């Protein structure tokens, strides 16, 4: 054996180290295995006839010609599968009053958005299925389309659902303190109406599924590009009347999800129905146009907001009226009320704002459904709040840093409850603001801005504080009646070789979940990270859990792996003690070796321990049964969420003749608690920032007044590209949470939360001398020149 193990802490401490994603090399070699890479014997392909109208009655459907095309296996409509698939409704009990009609995989009687699937065709190839779609004849009666938010809200306008008395799906009101009184006594009031444009998810890998129903066993195996295999196992079980143990959901490599891949979509459900009907595997891969038409959209909000302040710049109150258009249905099973709920609760959340009145109105429309997506609600709450803070700062002639320093919640206040009702354990706003000011060299930028203005160059600086919702606990979905788990599980075993294999219920979509889980296991077991193999994304091979969404993977999944590792370590030390006839408490594990703590020398390797325990248990005492694997589950405790916080800044230049915005620099100072892997954390933040920048400058699902989606290709829907992105500088503060054993919070939403807000503030800062204010997003050149009165 080698010499004594010095610095045992350092040897085993993989948490906090930069570790690149362990599957990156495999992907770089082109060895990724996504759903579309999987080809099963006898597999058929499904395609959909979609509604050409935003709103129309289906008078009749003639599929005979399609059915007779050579190579077509099956053609069906909603009416043909009501005995196979039970309908669903996107409601949760903790959103009282939320209403949404029953949905089937295909439009039933009436189509309610342009692109809604109406008829399914199953054929030997996708091309034949698409040929057959052209032979389907649907007789329509077009109805008036409800497109805009005002259009939907109008009292005497047409209805999306004739059985309801209005287009309102849900109303929520929040009150803290007495905002009326605060406004009456305020020195300064600022107010504005923001209109935030609809975006969509745009994952690199589109939505995909192979549904393989074996009628002999009534067993369904779904290879499914989803974040939440357990949720989908439950949904397939219940809606197709199967036994849970006979439903297996496998998520192979998933090429991005961002919240878009955890909702129930008609196409995937129809693929399952098709497989049950024909007893063959059925593949659905959304093409890019189908993605634009039928993936969830997000964040179409019209927000009227007011802020009351004292003459010294203390924020007293906000009053917010937020209306959001969600399309024709509240999406199952997480509902389309959640985004508005979180937006409303995040208003003013970084600040000591005692009084608040918020009203949310969720409206039906004839557009694609909207639902949860990365940074659910955050950009709406943060953009509204930070826009008002900047308006107030300008009115009070205060510096944007000064007004925020004055108002952020401070160290002496925690734990505290925000006006929106969130409980904050401990944040670090003051520290983040200080760090940001230094990081961006704020005073130098202001000087440069002033100097350039003299020469007719309009640069702007935008700042915004945010809090971020992470690590959701059991009060999130379970209490609303949804069968979405808030706990996670980890199975962990010692291989005879001394290596470790773990199977965990959090999932990987490219963000590095598996790497972080390996880091945590390696650290708390005391083995090399490369000796830990991680299995995710298979309901038959992993413990049941919540999986990955809402920035819960690292915090909750990591804690699960941590307690499993500590339990297995205890077992392994006990086995070592039995083998060596020593005292387990005198041993530790370092670098895969059991060491004597006193001498720091290896006493037995894990591979030798594995050999003895697995192959020569006859050498151990009678009736001794080495426990070589463990399973542990972890339930988040304490507050309903672990909040993180941060602050962002943007520096940009507006070409006031063309309306083109050039992003020059972007900064993020962020506090996600204990950092498990800085490289992955930074890339989460950068990716999140780019999502936010895309939303504020480029991305918009454009609908015509008739409800036709106009931006349904990558040429027309403008995704953010690398050339237009600024350098994104990142710094951290670390305020651990005491709510999880690991101390880590989430980080997936942070970048997106405030990136758009600070760009809006920077553009308005740039245009301030020209007396122009932007309030509609994305900030297109045309909108900027209109605000400037140039066109």
């Amino acid at each position, binding site marked *: 054996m080698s010499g004594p193990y010095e610095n045992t802490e350092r040897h085993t401490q993989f948490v906090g180290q930069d570790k690149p994603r362990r599957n990156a090399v495999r992907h770089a070699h082109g060895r990724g295995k996504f759903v579309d890479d999987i080809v099963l014997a006898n597999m058929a392909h499904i395609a959909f006839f979609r509604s050409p109208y935003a709103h129309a009655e289906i008078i009749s459907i003639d599929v005979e010609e399609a059915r007779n095309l050579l190579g077509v296996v099956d053609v069906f409509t909603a009416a043909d599968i009501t005995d196979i698939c039970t309908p669903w409704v996107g409601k949760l009990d903790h959103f009282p009053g939320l209403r949404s009609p029953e949905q089937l995989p295909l439009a039933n009687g009436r189509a309610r958005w342009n692109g809604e699937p109406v008829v399914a065709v199953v054929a030997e*190839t*996708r*091309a034949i299925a*698409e*040929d057959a779609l*052209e032979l389907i004849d649907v007789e329509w009666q077009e109805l008036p389309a409800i497109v805009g938010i005002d259009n939907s809200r109008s009292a005497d306008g047409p209805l999306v659902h004739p059985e309801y008395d209005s287009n309102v799906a849900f109303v929520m009101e929040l009150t803290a303190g007495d905002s009326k009184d605060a406004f009456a006594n305020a020195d300064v009031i600022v107010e504005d109406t923001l209109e935030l444009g609809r975006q969509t998810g745009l994952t690199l890998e589109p939505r995909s599924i192979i549904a393989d129903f074996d009628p002999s066993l009534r067993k369904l195996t779904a290879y499914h590009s989803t974040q939440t295999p357990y949720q989908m196992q439950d949904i397939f079980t219940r809606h197709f009347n199967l036994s849970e143990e006979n439903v297996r959901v496998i998520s192979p490599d998933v090429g991005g999800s961002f919240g878009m891949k955890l909702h129930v979509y008609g196409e995937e459900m129809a693929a399952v129905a098709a497989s049950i009907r024909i007893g063959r595997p059925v593949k659905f891969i959304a*093409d*890019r*146009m*189908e993605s634009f038409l039928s993936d969830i959209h997000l964040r179409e909000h019209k927000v009227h907001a007011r802020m009351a302040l004292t003459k010294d710049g203390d924020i007293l109150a906000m009053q917010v009226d937020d209306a959001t258009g969600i399309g024709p249905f509240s999406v199952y099973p997480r509902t389309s009320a959640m985004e508005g709920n979180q937006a409303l609760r995040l208003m003013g959340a970084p600040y000591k704002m005692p009084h608040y009145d918020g009203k949310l109105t969720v409206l039906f429309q004839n557009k694609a459904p909207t639902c949860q997506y990365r940074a659910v609600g955050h950009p709406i709450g943060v953009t509204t709040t930070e826009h008002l803070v900047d308006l107030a700062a300008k009115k009070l002639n205060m510096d944007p840093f000064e007004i925020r320093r004055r108002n952020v919640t401070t160290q002496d206040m925690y734990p505290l409850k925000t006006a929106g009702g969130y409980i904050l354990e401990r944040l670090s706003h003051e520290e983040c603001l200080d760090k940001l000011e230094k990081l961006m060299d704020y005073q130098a930028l202001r000087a440069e801005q002033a100097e350039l203005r003299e020469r007719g160059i309009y640069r702007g600086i935008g700042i915004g504080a945010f809090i971020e919702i992470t690590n959701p606990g059991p009060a999130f979905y379970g209490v609303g009646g949804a069968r979405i788990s808030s706990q996670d599980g980890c199975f962990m075993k010692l291989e005879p070789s001394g290596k470790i294999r773990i199977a965990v219920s959090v999932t990987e979509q490219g963000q590095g979940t598996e790497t972080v889980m390996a880091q945590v296991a390696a650290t708390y077991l005391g083995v090399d990270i490369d000796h830990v193999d991680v299995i995710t994304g298979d309901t038959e091979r992993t413990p049941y859990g919540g999986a990955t969404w809402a920035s819960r993977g690292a915090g909750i999944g990591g804690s699960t792996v941590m307690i499993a590792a500590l339990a297995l370590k205890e077992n392994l030390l006990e086995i070592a003690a039995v083998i060596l006839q020593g005292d387990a408490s005198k041993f530790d594990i370092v670098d895969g070796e059991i060491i004597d703590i006193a001498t720091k020398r290896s006493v037995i390797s894990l591979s030798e321990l594995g050999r003895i325990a697995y192959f020569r248990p006859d050498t151990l005492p009678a009736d001794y049964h080495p426990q070589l694997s463990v399973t542990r589950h972890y339930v988040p405790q304490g507050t309903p969420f672990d909040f993180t916080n941060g602050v962002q800044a943007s520096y940009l230049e507006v070409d006031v*003749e*063309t*309306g*083109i915005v050039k992003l020059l620099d972007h900064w993020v100072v962020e506090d996600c608690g204990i950092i498990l892997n800085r490289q992955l954390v930074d890339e989460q933040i950068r990716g999140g920032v780019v999502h936010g920048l895309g939303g504020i*400058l*480029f991305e918009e699902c*454009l609908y015509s007044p008739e409800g036709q989606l*106009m*931006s349904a*290709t990558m*040429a*027309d829907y*403008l995704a*953010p*590209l690398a*050339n*237009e992105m600024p350098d994104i500088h990142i710094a951290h503060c670390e305020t651990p949470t005491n709510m999880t054993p690991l101390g880590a919070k989430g980080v997936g939403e942070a970048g997106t939360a405030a990136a758009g807000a600070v760009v809006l503030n920077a553009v308005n800062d740039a245009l301030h001398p020209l007396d122009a204010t932007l309030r509609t997003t994305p900030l*297109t*050149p*045309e909108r900027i*020149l209109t605000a400037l009165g*140039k*066109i």
Partner: protein
Amino acid sequence: MKPHLFQYIRAESTQAAIALLEEFGEDAQILAGGQSLVPTMALRMANPETLIDISAIAELQTIELSDGVLTIGAGCRYVDVLNSDLVAKSAPLLCQAIPYIAHDAIRNRGTIGGSLALADPASELPACMLALDAVIIVESKDGQRKIPAGDFFQGTYFTDLAENELLVAIEMPEIASNQIHKFYEISRRSGDYAISGGAFVLTHEDGCIADARLAYFAVSDCAVLATKAGEALVGNSLSSEIIETVSDIAAGEIEFFADLYNGEAMKKQLTKVLTRRMLTKIHDGMN
């Protein structure tokens, strides 16, 4: 997003391609780089029964300079033109323009002839041909026709090319020592279709403009030459007053067409700004 079934034929020579066009008539389409046609087929917006692939025809991929005339084969890919020293010397406008066309992957496959035959109003090359006063050479079984660029482009995706004709080459005069080529476009993202774009060829004598061909793209139903603005420049030096006047004239004479994100007023404003900026750059370069 799968195309209809189609027949694919690879033509080995120009003559063979022309013979195939005669044989299959309106049901056939020429496949060159496929950068517009193939996505359109995937969307089933184009449904040709027969594709005649001309990408392997070497004689369509030559670049030659002879007697002051640069001839570029229609099958040359953007990247071939961009990397050609001959083009850089004799028609620098094209080398300025091509980096603005989409992205590397598209420039590696898309062809000059394909772009001109498609006549997308937002495409860069038709405007370059107008500015360069190029001649489009098309060929059928009846022989060749030489069509001035100004007559070739007739509207959105609409040209003088007949169904049985193959676009085989483009001829353009070599740049003269007193000529300036300038290309510029304003777009939201690199590689996007422009909001407004310009391709200018200016001839100067004794510090004054003797001839000005100001061509624009992405502003109207096809590439357009702003003839009044060009005439207004003739006989003048590029003073800031003249530049302002000419920019106004250009913005006034073009019939603007909106795109998905930019209305006619936007197109007009940006055309004015673009003209001013291009002429100012030319002025700065001359001094």
